């Protein structure tokens, strides 16, 4: 097994604040890896260390099976969470400049910039300045900048944020195509549905620590088929206090609940049909969203000692 990236017991501290705490991650070559976690969990701090923007206080960053060196960066593409481009620069100039910094020769960079802009439906805008573009378009430019030097490893921080569904779909296709070409992709997101669709493995971080890690399928099976998903019309709120249910998330006409130990799902179905019209009732593995919320809440409800 070849790892594109390994973090070995990495710790990063800012003044008194512990941003990343003894975090270890393996990202297999050719896989899509999801780095998940609530806001302020340490995702961006972790990614910054992978990019050599900051250095870990302790632990090791291993890239392409070697300790991190700056020249590895030419083989990595990075889409930061804080999007940013030179506002007054023309799109083509900007893309060529950023690709040149990654070691692509000027003429080749210009050719690729053109091709990617066409692919991302930006062809008519290449002579415009960035400040004249909409947020969504800037986002696509930023993505093009991350991928223009044809990196082996793509690190994308919230790649879908700010994209409409059509553009998100274009982006998803590009990512799948990259994966097929053998590229490794790491992305961080809050959108669990995309993680379920795209990721092979995940790591959930909270307070700088890994709280859940592994292959997506394996992680989900760990929780077992003890969840029910119900689509309904009517009153579902009563489940919250039901002794049959351990944890519960209600979305109005959709609900997901974890069964209490030894509870019979049929009992719940009966109780539910008495109060509401049930359109779908399924015994299933928990969704990643549920796992995320439960894991994070559980950790946070634990008293934090100094």
């Amino acid at each position: 097994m070849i790892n594109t990236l390994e973090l070995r017991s990495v710790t990063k501290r800012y003044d008194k604040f512990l941003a990343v705490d003894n975090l270890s991650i393996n990202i297999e070559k050719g896989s899509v890896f999801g780095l998940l976690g609530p806001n302020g969990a340490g995702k961006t701090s972790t990614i910054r260390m992978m990019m050599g923007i900051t250095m870990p206080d302790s632990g090791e960053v291993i890239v392409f099976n070697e300790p991190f060196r700056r020249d590895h960066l030419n083989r990595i593409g990075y889409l930061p969470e804080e999007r940013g481009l030179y506002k007054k620069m023309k799109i083509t100039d900007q893309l060529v400049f950023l690709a040149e910094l990654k070691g692509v020769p000027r003429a080749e960079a210009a050719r690729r910039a053109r091709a990617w802009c066409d692919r991302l439906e930006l062809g008519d805008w290449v002579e415009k300045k960035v400040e004249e573009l909409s947020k969504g378009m800037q986002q696509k430019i930023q993505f093009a900048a991350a991928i223009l030097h044809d990196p082996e490893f793509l690190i994308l921080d919230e790649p879908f944020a700010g994209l409409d569904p059509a553009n998100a779909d274009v982006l998803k296709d590009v990512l799948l195509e990259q994966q097929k070409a053998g590229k490794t992709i790491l992305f961080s997101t809050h959108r669990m549905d995309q993680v379920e669709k795209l990721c092979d493995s995940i790591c959930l971080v909270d307070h700088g620590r890994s709280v859940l890690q592994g292959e997506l399928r394996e992680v989900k099976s760990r929780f077992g088929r003890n969840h029910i998903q119900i689509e309904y019309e009517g009153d579902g709120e009563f489940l919250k206090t039901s002794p049959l249910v351990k944890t519960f998330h209600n979305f109005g006409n959709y609900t997901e609940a974890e069964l209490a130990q030894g509870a019979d799902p049929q009992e719940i179905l009966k109780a539910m049909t008495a109060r509401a019209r049930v359109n779908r009732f399924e015994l299933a593995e928990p969704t990643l969203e549920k796992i995320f919320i439960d894991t994070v809440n559980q950790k946070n409800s634990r008293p934090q000692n100094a």
Partner: protein
Amino acid sequence: MRNTWLVIRREYIERVRAKSFLISTLLIPAFIYAVTVLPTQLATRKASSKLHLAIATSNARTGEAIANQLRSVTSGNKYQVDVKTADDPQLRANLRSQVESGAIDGYLWLTDDAISQGKVEYAASSTSDFVQIGELHSAVNTGVTRARLAERGVSPDDAEKMLKRVDVDTVEIKGGQEKKGPGEGKFFAGFAVAMMLYFMLIFHGMAVMRSVLEEKTSRVMEVMLSSVNAKDLMAGKIIGVGAVGLTQTAIWVILGLAGSSPMFAASKNLREIIASSSGLLIWLPVYFVLGFLLYSGLYAALGAAVNSDQEAQQLQFFVTMPLIIPIVIMTMIIRQPDSTASFWLSMVPFFSPILMTIRIAMHTPPVWQIALSVAILLVTMYLILSITSRIYRVGILMYGKRPTLPEIVRWLKYA
């Protein structure tokens, strides 16, 4: 290395292409002209007005001598003078009412009494034109002297010979050679060179600061740092902006040496001193480059430490102040370029780019002094850049509230 070069190229091309480059290239010389040459020209030129004066005297001969003196003033005001004998007790009151009604512009009261006391009086509706007062002063003195000589039986021809003005020519002796000193022109030229350096250091230093701040606020910094390390980025930025500054200076020098348009009137003085101290052509760029590196390091750190233009404005005074001090003490250095105080002040690295340039323009100091100041400047520059590059490294990734000084000091330990 390659990345630094790419950053330099981007910085340079984007800047030179921008409209603001063209505008500042034209406006800065215009501004320097406006604050240095224009006020003197306006003050001396105002003069061409016509003045109608009266002279009240108890001695017509003295009165006429002064009147003739005034009538013969060629440069400056044109005088029409009436001489009146002050035997009429009403004369003073009459003259006063004439001044008030505007019939005359003013009158000189110089009775024998007043002259023997050594104090005569000039009354007018306005006495603030120092050129006019100067002309009156010299006319009265010459007139009175002439009259006194005549009283002692000196013939007008002899008096003329005695009063003949002697001009003082300035000659500078340097290396066994005599050169005609440019005198007053040199003063203005020293002033102009100092102002030019001052503006360029502030202007391009702040350009570095704004450029850093822009990368920070537009969040492009993070993308840049995924390819370039902070030190290379800062170096590329400083060199790129500095190259723009040198380009601008080159344009000014070419325009200034070739052009004759009034905007570049200051360049006549510049040509004068360049001719008189050839060292300046070599040392001016050296001091500009070193001074720029020193100050732009400070400005870059400032831009990295703050989060907005407002915060930058609140703090930039601390960086600008050491640049203002040499401008404040400039006159002293121009007048006494070789005094002990001038020497020590011009060794202070934050002052030396401006002060040494002035000293070189005025009167080239010994080579060891230039070498010493350059050495001090180099060492300081190295120290400042290694400190500021650390502040820069940490600052560019810090968002949120403005850092306090103790926090910035703590940043130095991170890097």
